[in-house]
């Protein structure tokens, strides 16, 4: 009888423990969202859309959030949109290039010298015309396409520039893929990544002058820079090939050793009682 009582008590304790809610699950939760997202994510229509769009952007990937562009206070909900905290609101069309150009300095300079820049406010494109405003993704040649450019004029001019940039862009993408491959093998690709980023940026920034002649001329210089990177990559390839060769030798030696040990053992087996 006493044993049954004890068993029942034990069963109750176990049941209680099993039903205890999960503890410490929050230990690995990430940092709290900024107040902008906390509010706007729940808002309907055009007030809530930017959040989802931004979440897929390269800005979000790199920790650039709402206040980085629009100003304001990301931690204080009451004063989040106060001009006193630097809130800029939605920029007017004419102010867009300067808005993005606060960070993208080089691009702004090239844009303002271009025909696009000179047409600002008179039907010309701003940054968001081609890049979008919240869903800004990593720039590639695909941004120059029939659908986008023919909104305002014939695609012929744009096609020429795209063709001029195509070769260089291919080189850049190949270098990027090879570098990523080496990074996966523990090779220190820091210098290569930085070098490629610098060249890629100056190349893409160049486009904003929308000057086919200029783009063509500069392409040669840029390709020379890329060739230097390619040489470094080829050097690494060569090094890795040499290692594999040594590896093949080492494996062969180990197999030979196994064979010799085996044969040596066999000579003793004949004298085994």
């Amino acid at each position: 009888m006493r044993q049954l009582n004890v068993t029942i008590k034990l069963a109750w304790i176990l049941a209680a423990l099993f039903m205890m809610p999960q503890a410490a699950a929050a230990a690995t939760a990430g940092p709290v969202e900024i107040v902008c997202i906390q509010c706007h994510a729940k808002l309907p229509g055009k007030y809530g859309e930017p959040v989802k769009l931004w979440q897929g952007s390269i800005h979000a990937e790199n920790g650039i959030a709402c206040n980085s562009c629009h100003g304001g206070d990301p931690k204080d909900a009451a004063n989040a949109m106060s001009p006193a905290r630097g809130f800029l609101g939605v920029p007017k069309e004419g102010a867009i290039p300067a808005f993005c150009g606060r960070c993208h300095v080089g691009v702004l300079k090239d844009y303002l010298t271009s025909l696009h820049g000179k047409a600002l406010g008179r039907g010309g494109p701003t940054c968001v015309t081609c890049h979008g405003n919240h869903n800004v993704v990593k720039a590639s040649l695909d941004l120059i396409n029939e659908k986008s450019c023919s909104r305002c004029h014939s695609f012929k001019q744009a096609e020429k520039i795209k063709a001029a940039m195509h070769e260089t862009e291919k080189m850049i993408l190949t270098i990027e893929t090879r570098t990523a491959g080496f990074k996966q093998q523990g090779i220190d690709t820091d210098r290569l990544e930085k070098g490629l980023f610098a060249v890629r940026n100056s190349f893409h920034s160049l486009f904003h002058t929308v000057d086919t002649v200029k783009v063509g001329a500069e392409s040669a210089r840029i390709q020379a820079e890329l060739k230097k990177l390619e040489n470094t990559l080829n050097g690494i390839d060569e090094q890795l090939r040499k290692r594999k060769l040594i590896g093949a030798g080492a494996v062969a030696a180990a197999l030979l050793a196994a064979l010799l040990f085996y044969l040596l053992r066999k000579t003793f087996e004949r004298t085994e009682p």
Partner: protein
Amino acid sequence: MVNDDRRKFLAICLGGLTASAVVAVGYPVYRYLAPLQKENAAGKVVIPEQELPAGGAKFFEYAGSTAVMVRKQGGDLVALSAVCTHLGCIVQWEKEKQDFLCPCHAGRFTPEGTVISGPPPKPLAKLPFVVANGVITVG
């Protein structure tokens, strides 16, 4: 006996293999443990002092990447790596503002390389140099 001869032959083969294995393992371990030689001899860069007026900067190639020499308004010289510590773009010298501005994401540095504003996480790396007889030698 045939067996004895076979045994001797195999033992000698194994002995040879072991000896080469010892070398094959010993050499990398020795190289791994040996003190590293810093590559100092690599291309020092020479710049005549007069190429740097006060408030001016000169960009040059050093150790495989771009570097910059600055003469501050007070006359002091600073040698820095011109590679922005954010993502690697080459910083530009702004003569009017007497600072470095990175065209990629507007990182700003003082003439000494300290970060003023923007995304760069670290200051520009300083480079060693000596001045003698009106000539600056970097490296």
